[in-house]
């Protein structure tokens, strides 16, 4: 510092003046630079010779505190020594010493602190209200906010950095950048990023409300009609934070840098504004971070999200000229204090992707669906591309928060809708027109030149100057979309379903699946809907003629009145589907799952239910004539009143099925399982029940004339009053069967097991029971006229009062049999074993008893008139 500089220095001049006018004061001159000190002392000695200059080396504070000057004295000390004097003897420092700073420390602190040393801030009550709200906001964010994936951006040099890091630097920077524009396309994670920032800033503020800025998150979409940002902020304070502060107080706080504004969705706010209006509102936002007019950067911070095209040009295929830059870019990008970055598309590894999906989509089923989509090799390899599909899904995922079923077509729709439904200053066409434009493109018709196509993300401008889809899957998707739209609006199809390629079929299937609630009465005939997910689809009245629904998921689908004739529903899952009045004639339902399906009044003739699972299906009154139900599972199915004449039920499971009054004439039930089934009054005339299982089956009043039940298991079967005329029970198991009052005339029970069977009152005229096992059977009062019981086992059976006139009982085992009051007149009992039998009051007139064993038989009042008892043994021979 030279003399001329010193003369200009206000501190020097002031010290000089004070030394001149004071009598015995103490001064403390702070210095760091020896040359400055020397220069000042030199000049002061010349100007004020009486003044003394001391340069104490130690005990400076004690020396100054105790010093009693006789003339003005200047102590030359370091900034540290000044602090020491202050902290040891603040009274002396404040009251007795004049301090002059030649060290430059004051200027340094001024630079750091600017306006005030300690900012006064807002009143405590206001801070409390902010804190209260922010506490709640953080809690809500932690409870509800989805998983946060760090966002990245790439700078002009091509280097990629985390956006979080940029924000950290941005917030810490006290002078250079105050407005950060975070740009990103729809669903690129802008809002989520801003919410993440808001939560982080809120936590910081709650930790130290004195030091940190108050974070203020404003969703600008709600203020689309308001052109003044200051008013918006105050309104937001009022409504969200319950904070009422005056405009002056707000401006004052802004000036002191008390706020960090997080403004979300500038594009949504300004979607319907023109360029001039957008520019105006941007100015008011700009003012939030800067002192109007002065140009001095202050401490407020503004982070705003917006779509990139508001700032950057995104026209494809052209090298942008300066005219192509947006007005906002031209106005704000060159400003030192504005930073704009574009969020990079998120690329995640598998583990992070899974974590992202699980955190974003809270619904477990939906998350699982999305994850399965992301691992669907067919979609990733045959239809789309892994990176393309993953990117689309990440971008659109928030849309699927509440959707349980998500398929690839949904993803494509959500992604393409971003452009189709875009509404901002660049758009010239309506959403509908834009959609028609891409449909045209899908039909390989070059669309008309349109400005809107220039920023379409899935169309690219090729070297020949034509628009093409960036990936073929978009073409297939749009083709399928319009194909279905035509079906939906009952317009003529673009071309026959058979001409659709695999990719289009894939999307069409998914589109139909997505629109399954709106398929009522639509013509879906001949479409390939194999494996389609039509869970609970509304298909009533739909035309599904010859439609391929193989393995389709149609659980709970409404198919009433639908035309399914000729449709392929093999292996389709139709549990609880409703087929009332549907036409299933000739439908292939083999191996289909029709559990609890409602097939009442459906037209099923000629349908193929081979191996179908019809457990619990409702088939009341169903017309199943000639229907193939072989191997079908009809357990608990309701077939009451159904017409199954001549249908094939070979091997079918009808356990506990209700076949009450069903018409099963001529039906083939070979090997069928009818355990515990209800066949009361059913018609089974001429039915083939060979080897069928009819254990405990209720065939009361059933009509089984001429039915073949040979080798069937009919143990405990209820056949009371059933018509079993001329039935074949060859080797049938009928143990404990209830055949009371049944009509069993001329039936054949050869070799059948009828132990303990109940034949009371049954009509068994001319029935063939030879070799049948009727031991313990109850045949009292049964009519066994001319029945053939040759070799039958009837021991302990009850045949009291039975009519066995003319019956053939040659060689029959009638030991212990109750034949009391039985009419055995004319019966052939030759060689029969009647030992210990009860023949009291029996009529054996004209019976043949030759060689019969009557030892021990009870023959009280027995009539043997005309009986042939030659060779009969009544008593044991004496040994």
């Amino acid at each position, binding site marked *: 510092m030279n003399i001329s500089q010193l003369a200009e220095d206000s501190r020097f*001049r*002031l010290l000089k003046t004070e030394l001149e006018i004071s009598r015995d004061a103490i001064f403390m001159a702070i210095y760091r630079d020896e040359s400055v000190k020397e220069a000042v002392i030199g000049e002061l000695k010349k100007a004020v010779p009486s003044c003394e200059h001391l340069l104490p080396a130690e005990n400076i504070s004690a020396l100054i505190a105790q010093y009693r000057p006789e003339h003005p004295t200047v102590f030359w000390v370091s*900034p540290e020594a000044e602090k020491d004097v202050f902290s040891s003897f603040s009274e002396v420092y404040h009251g007795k010493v004049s301090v002059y700073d030649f060290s430059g420390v*004051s200027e340094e602190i001024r630079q750091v602190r600017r306006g005030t*040393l300690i900012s006064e801030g807002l009143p405590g009550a206001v801070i409390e209200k902010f804190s209260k709200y922010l506490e709640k906001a953080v809690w809500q964010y932690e409870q509800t906010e989805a998983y946060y994936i760090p966002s990245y951006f790439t700078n002009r040099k091509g280097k990629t950095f985390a956006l979080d890091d940029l924000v950290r630097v941005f917030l810490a920077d006290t002078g250079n950048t105050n407005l950060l524009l975070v740009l990103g396309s729809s669903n690129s994670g802008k809002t989520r990023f801003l919410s993440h920032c808001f939560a982080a800033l809120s936590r910081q503020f709650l930790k130290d409300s004195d*030091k940190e800025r108050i974070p203020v998150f404003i969703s600008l979409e709600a203020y689309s009609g308001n052109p003044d940002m200051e008013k918006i902020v105050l309104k937001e304070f009022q409504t969200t934070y319950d904070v009422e502060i005056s405009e002056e107080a707000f401006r004052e706080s802004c000036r002191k840098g008390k706020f960090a504004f997080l403004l979300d969705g500038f594009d949504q706010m300004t979607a319907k504004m023109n360029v001039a209006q957008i520019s105006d509102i941007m100015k008011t936002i700009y003012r939030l971070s800067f002192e109007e007019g002065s140009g001095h950067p202050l401490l407020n911070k503004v982070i705003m999200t917006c779509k990139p095209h508001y700032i950057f040009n995104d026209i494809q295929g052209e090298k942008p000229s300066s005219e192509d830059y947006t007005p906002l870019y031209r106005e704000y990008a060159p400003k030192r204090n504005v930073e704009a970055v574009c969020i990079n598309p998120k690329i995640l590894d598998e583990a992070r992707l899974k974590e992202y999906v699980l955190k974003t989509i809270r619904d477990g089923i939906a998350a699982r669906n999305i994850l399965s989509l992301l691992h669907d090799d067919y979609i990733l390899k045959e239809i789309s591309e892994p990176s393309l599909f993953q990117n689309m899904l990440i971008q659109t995922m928030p849309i699927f928060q509440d959707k349980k079923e998500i398929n690839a077509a949904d993803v494509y729709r959500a992604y393409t809708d971003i452009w189709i439904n875009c509404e901002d200053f660049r758009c010239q066409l309506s959403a509908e027109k834009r959609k028609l434009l891409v449909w045209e493109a899908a039909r390989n018709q070059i669309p008309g030149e349109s400005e809107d196509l220039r920023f379409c993300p899935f169309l690219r401008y090729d070297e020949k100057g034509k628009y093409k889809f960036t990936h073929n899957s978009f073409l297939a998707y749009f083709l399928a979309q319009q194909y279905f739209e035509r079906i939906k609006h009952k317009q003529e199809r673009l071309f026959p379903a058979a001409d659709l390629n695999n990719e289009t079929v894939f999307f069409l299937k998914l589109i139909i699946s997505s629109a399954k609630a709106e398929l009522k009465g639509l013509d879906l005939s001949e479409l390939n809907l194999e494996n389609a997910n039509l869970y609970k689809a509304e298909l009533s009245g739909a035309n599904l003629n010859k439609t391929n629904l193989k393995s389709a998921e149609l659980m709970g689908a409404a198919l009433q009145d639908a035309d399914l004739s000729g449709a392929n529903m093999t292996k389709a899952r139709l549990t609880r589907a409703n087929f009332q009045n549907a036409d299933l004639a000739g439908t292939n339902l083999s191996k289909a799952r029709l559990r609890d399906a409602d097939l009442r009044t459906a037209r099923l003739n000629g349908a193929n239910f081979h191996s179908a699972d019809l457990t619990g299906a409702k088939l009341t009154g169903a017309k199943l004539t000639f229907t193939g139900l072989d191997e079908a599972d009809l357990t608990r199915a309701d077939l009451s009143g159904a017409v199954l004449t001549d249908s094939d039920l070979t091997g079918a499971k009808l356990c506990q099925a209700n076949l009450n009054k069903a018409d099963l004439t001529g039906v083939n039930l070979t090997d069928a399982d009818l355990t515990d089934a209800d066949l009361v009054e059913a018609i089974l005339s001429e039915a083939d029940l060979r080897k069928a299982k009819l254990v405990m089956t209720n065939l009361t009043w059933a009509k089984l004339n001429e039915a073949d039940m040979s080798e069937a298991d009919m143990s405990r079967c209820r056949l009371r009053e059933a018509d079993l005329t001329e039935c074949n029970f060859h080797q049938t198991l009928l143990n404990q069967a209830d055949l009371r009052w049944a009509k069993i005339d001329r039936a054949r029970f050869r070799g059948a097991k009828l132990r303990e069977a109940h034949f009371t009152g049954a009509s068994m005229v001319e029935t063939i029971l030879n070799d049948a096992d009727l031991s313990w059977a109850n045949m009292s009062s049964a009519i066994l006229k001319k029945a053939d019981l040759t070799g039958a086992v009837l021991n302990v059976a009850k045949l009291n009062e039975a009519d066995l006139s003319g019956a053939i009982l040659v060689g029959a085992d009638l030991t212990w049999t109750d034949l009391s009051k039985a009419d055995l007149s004319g019966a052939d009992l030759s060689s029969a074993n009647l030992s210990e039998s009860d023949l009291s009051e029996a009529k054996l007139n004209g019976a043949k008893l030759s060689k019969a064993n009557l030892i021990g038989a009870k023959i009280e009042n027995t009539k043997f008139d005309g009986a042939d008892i030659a060779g009969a043994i009544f008593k044991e021979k004496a040994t």
Partner: protein
Amino acid sequence: MVKAFYDAYHRFARFPLIGGIGETFYVQNIAKEAVQRMTKSIVSERFGKTLAIGQSGAGISTALHRLAQEQTITDTHHVIFFSAADALSVTDAEPIELFIVIWIKLICAMQERNIEIPAKTFDLLANITSEGINTKKTETELARMISLKIKTDPEFRHNIVKRFMIKTETMEEHISDLCWILSGQVHAGYRMNEAVFKKFQDEDMSQNILSKLEGLKDQEYKSELTFLRTIEGIIGELQTLHYKPVFLKHAWVEEKKDVLIVIDEMNHLKREITEKIFFEKKTMFHGLEAKMIFAFPLSLWHHPAFSDVLSYFRCEFIRPLSVYDAVGNYRGESLNIMKEAILKRIEPSLISDDAIATLIDVSGGLMGDLMGFMQNACLRAIEKKAAIIGNDIIAEVIDDKIDAFARVFDFAGYENALRTIIRSKKKATIHNKDLIYLLNYGFVLEYGDSPDTLWYDAHPCLIFDRKS
């Protein structure tokens, strides 16, 4: 113009308002209530010990000086007033040294009043100074010697401390003896106070003479001759002769006076010394048969150890004037007092109203700071050869204070606590140790009249925005 600012510069220097200067510049309302309360308690309590608590610049010294000059006090007390900072070493004094200083001051007071010093006191004086009993020096000389050595000679202090550290009672006894002697002296002399004037009226003294004698009110004369000569000089020989019996009958006042020791600037000592005196040796003053008042730093009142001390002292607070209240409303009364204090020292034409208002605003109600600002402003006016102190000069003055705060404030350690205080205006929101620091160095000011209404705020210069 420069001369006017030059005079004002010196008038704004920090000095206690005593004597003629005090009468000229003292603003009646400053610490008025505190002085009244202290006066009342001193008069009513026997051997009461009072702490005049306040922050630097709040006006404790002025209040104590006012108190010492109160007629009610001087009529009934031997006031011994001294500054601890002047009498003791501010860096390393021991409590016993304060005792010795009190003892010395009592000796000096007795000598001033021509009261004989007891022999044992002289012996002790001689002993302490190592002069020996046969010294030819007077008590005054010995006392001065001790005073000087206590202030300046560390070795001497060391020896004294060593010698008396365990004999505090001895010193206490000596002091109490002197107090007893001093207070036992019947104070007598001619003095015309209000009561005397009333009696004169009763004796039909003419109004003309009474008004002429008004100037001698409360002045004391030990000698009858001097008293009558003074009166003669005012009302003339004839009238004096006429009223002589009345004067001599009624103006003779006899009264007994207690000893009141007022120790100012205790807060100028190093904080550790003050803590040692009051916290460690809190019982030290209890046995002294004298009334005592100490200037006491507010920050120590907030010290956790103060609760133990509380029972030994009566506390009287002298707080800054509330220029504005806790919610920011300006208080006209305080503004007027501070404005009056300024305009008593400087011509109104030399400073703009705006400048006065701004300075009062940033002083935070601290009279000391206001005087400092004004002195700095006068200096700058001289340097700039300005005609008037306007906003430009005031801005520089405030910047000086802001810079000083910026250099010495521990931002890292206390910024948060300070912000909390600014926001809440309550002390409960910060740690006690932070509050002590902030109050001790004047970064935070305590306002209010009673414990229930206390509120706190940062010194305005810490939050003053340079731009505004």
